[in-house]
């Protein structure tokens, strides 16, 4: 099926509600990160939310890096 429309995809196919809960915004060592829950103990970095270019060179928080939940300050819902 080819659907040719100017409507955004999310208006036609509503997103699954569970996909929203997987990602969270957290603060790790003073740097805001978007993380995804991997298992009960660890989260994986998806994106760094910082304007400081130096933060992007930090190996501990590069996208894909695993962080243990214990070291995260605020686990807040996105």
């Amino acid at each position: 099926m080819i659907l040719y429309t100017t409507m955004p995809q999310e208006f036609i196919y509503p997103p699954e509600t569970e996909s929203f809960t997987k990602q969270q915004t957290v603060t790790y060592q003073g740097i805001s990160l978007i993380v995804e829950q991997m298992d009960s103990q660890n989260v994986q970095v998806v994106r760094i939310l910082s304007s400081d270019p130096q933060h992007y060179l930090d190996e501990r928080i590069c996208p894909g890096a695993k962080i243990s939940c214990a070291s995260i300050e605020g686990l807040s819902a996105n």
Partner: protein
Amino acid sequence: MTRDLQQNESGNQEGQEPQKEDKPSSLMEKIQQLGQTNVPQLSSDSRIHCLTIIGQIEGHLALPPQNKTTKYEHLIPQLVAIEQNPKIEGVLIILNTVGGDVEAGLAISEMLATLSKPTVSIVLGGGHSIGVPIAVSCDHSFIAETATMTIHPIRLTGLVIGVPATFEYLDKMQDRVVNFVTKHSNITEEKFKDLMFAKGNLTRDIGTNVVGPDAVEYGLIDEVGGLGQAMRKLNELIDQSKASSEGLVQ
């Protein structure tokens, strides 16, 4: 020789963490080091900060997580922090956006335009629809030779009430975008509206897709260039603003 090396290492350690109050014993230090990798710390604060505006600009409507978005509630506190931090001297804006929420885009543009520190923007790939006001809001704007900017009238998705007031509302929103762009760039209102309402350029849509050098020709963007030129310009603007502020003090 080894002794010297160790001393050097401990010297470095002290230099990196001057804020630590109670110094742990050397044994404790070594135990802690076993479990940690040493991260190279270049400098604690960068002089130039960089904001990346990628994917869709997300405003009032939260998009599903599989969409790459730039949320304005993330950008605005960063901009406030940049304005307040005296160590930050300039901001580089990297744009590769397909557009998005008009009000969120205009909010970011206004914040950037009123920032007291020098700002330089680079459009890479695409800076479409509401990306245009963001690109022109900076003190100096660059566009990559291969980058494009789509200029088109604003669109409304969702529930629309079919009354004349809806059209007037849209028209006013359109004017806000046009006024912002013409105020912050060298393009004339006439030319910008011509590009915006041009027919036959986009498939089944109204508007124009402007490629790098054309955007400069129309006066929308200041220069064709990439990262190197943008950094050089930003450093130049920082030096200028420093010189003028020093002049004020005297």
